[in-house]
């Protein structure tokens, strides 16, 4: 489809539900509800917080209570998530493995069903390393994917729901030249991702990394949790009850959590299974790349770390062992 027709697609998509898309706010890009295509930042590198927020909210009610009566909080949550990059779509697929695994998380599952996802080509920078994590391309996990090939978009259709939106006249069949342009654009993107990290067997290297190296790697770490809170594959949440002034009703809230924070492994009586940033970082890296690769190479944890701690550099030093 021609790029000039994007506003038309946007308008039809908006009929499905509110559109949430990348928007520039100061120096950052965040996913927000938009009403017109003009508000959308079509060419961006990475959003501050990942689009997982639509499925697992930064802070959301999971139930209401009145005395010991518990009631689930249900909203239908129909929406269009527009302009998602391949890394973040892969991030959602990783979260699916957790949240759709039995017993599935009802809130996540419902929203996953009700939110339509429209992917979009990305603009990588020197912090991206998604080719090393196998997430530079989205094979599934979206309804439509718009690949930028210059004047036009190649539109990949992945679901019937997505197909419904491609029936208008401005969608053309792909021709040989489009395939070639698509191939060229994808190759160019992959070539532009210069950052590489070798993850083979890294889990066992994490396991044998001496404490002295951990201490060096984490010397500047502020235990602030930012790295986890911006990560598209972090699954952790904390739960808290909020009582109303009547002292009997209220709601139970869950909130993104981070394993870099004190409370993550704190148990009653003050015991902590991960007392310092050393154990916490070892846990974080194990979780991300220790076994199955759960990192999608988006670079957020590095870009938004107030102490400028670089994940890839840490992994490289762990491989070298010094």
């Amino acid at each position: 489809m021609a790029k000039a027709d994007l506003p038309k697609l946007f308008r039809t998509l908006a009929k499905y539900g509110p559109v949430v898309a990348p928007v520039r706010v100061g120096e950052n890009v965040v996913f927000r509800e938009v009403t017109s295509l003009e508000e959308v930042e079509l060419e961006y590198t990475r959003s501050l917080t990942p689009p997982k927020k639509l499925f697992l909210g930064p802070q959301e009610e999971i139930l209401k209570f009145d005395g010991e009566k518990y009631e689930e909080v249900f909203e239908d949550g129909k929406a269009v998530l527009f302009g998602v990059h391949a890394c973040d779509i892969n991030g959602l697929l990783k979260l699916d493995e957790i949240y759709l695994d039995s017993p599935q998380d009802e809130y996540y599952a419902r929203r996953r069903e009700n939110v339509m996802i429209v992917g979009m080509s990305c603009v990588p920078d020197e912090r991206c390393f998604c080719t090393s994590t196998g997430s530079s391309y989205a094979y599934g996990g979206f309804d439509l994917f718009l690949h930028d090939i210059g004047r036009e978009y190649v539109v990949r259709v992945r679901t019937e729901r997505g197909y419904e939106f491609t029936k208008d006249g401005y969608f053309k069949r792909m021709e040989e030249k489009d395939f070639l342009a698509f191939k060229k654009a994808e190759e160019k993107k992959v070539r532009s991702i210069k950052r590489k990290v070798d993850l083979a067997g890294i889990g066992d290297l994490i396991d044998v990394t001496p404490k002295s190296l951990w201490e060096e790697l984490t010397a500047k770490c502020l235990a602030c949790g930012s790295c986890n809170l911006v990560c598209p594959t972090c699954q952790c949440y904390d739960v808290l009850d909020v009582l109303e002034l009547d002292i009997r009703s209220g709601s139970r809230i869950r909130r993104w959590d981070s394993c870099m924070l004190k409370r993550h492994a704190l148990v009653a009586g003050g015991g902590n299974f991960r007392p310092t940033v050393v154990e916490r970082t070892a846990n974080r890296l194990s979780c991300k790349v220790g076994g199955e690769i759960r990192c999608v190479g988006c670079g957020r944890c590095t870009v938004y770390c107030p102490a400028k701690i670089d994940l890839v550099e840490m992994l490289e030093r762990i491989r070298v062992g010094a």
Partner: protein
Amino acid sequence: MNELIPKPVKILKVKDQTPIEKLFTLGVKLGQKPGQFIEMSIAGVGEAPVSICSSPTRGNVEVCVRRVGRVTNALHRLGAGARVGVRGPYGNGFPLEKMRGSEVVLVAGGIGMAPVRAVLQYLLDKKKEYGEIKLLYGIRDYSMMLFKDEILKLMNSKACTVYLSYEKEDEVCKRLRKEYPERVCQGVVTKLFEMVKLNPEAHAVVCGPPVMFWFVFKEMRNRGFPIERLYMTLERRMKCGIGKCKHCVVGVGSMMKYVCKDGPVFSGVEALTMRGMKYVR
């Protein structure tokens, strides 16, 4: 079904156990496996994971809870008739099928007696299917003994052999030591192994504070007990109980497990090969 919504359940009975522990009988049957736990909710305060300390063969679910923080304190304020929220049962439970036909050694310390009691009740009720039952129980002093009546009765019964260790001597402990010198002693729970003949064909269940577990583990291994026949429970912070919130994860590197889903029961081999399990105060 939404797993995160607790079901309101009535507390049928509350019984003091020690100055800091109470036994709650709940108006619900869950068909749990011994070793499984529930998430107990007090609206406005929060949730806490607690082991079910009764066997499914005995009907209603019972939990024995130590007062340590917000949720557990709030629970201790409640009496019979009040309602609490319950989710579960969760976790794998002890592999009691595997133990069938063999002798079972139960080792408990502190609040670890709660899950062990569930196993014990189960074994006693299915006596014919299992071999001899031994219980090794370590307490600080008599005031801190859980299930006092039951334990004292069992000390006197043939259904199972009870060994008891205590750290501080008081009147009751002294009497017990005089009465059963071959089964009661002063010291930590590992001291009891001097009195017990360990059968390497047996299975063992160990529950207690983390430090105790490692001492027992070492002691039993040194005495030639095969660690693959030993099972223990792990305690970690938990928020969901169903493998989502990842607070309970153990192990570093390529071996990571969820205590709530893959545990809380682990075999001695798993405990030995998993890294980062050390408990730090």
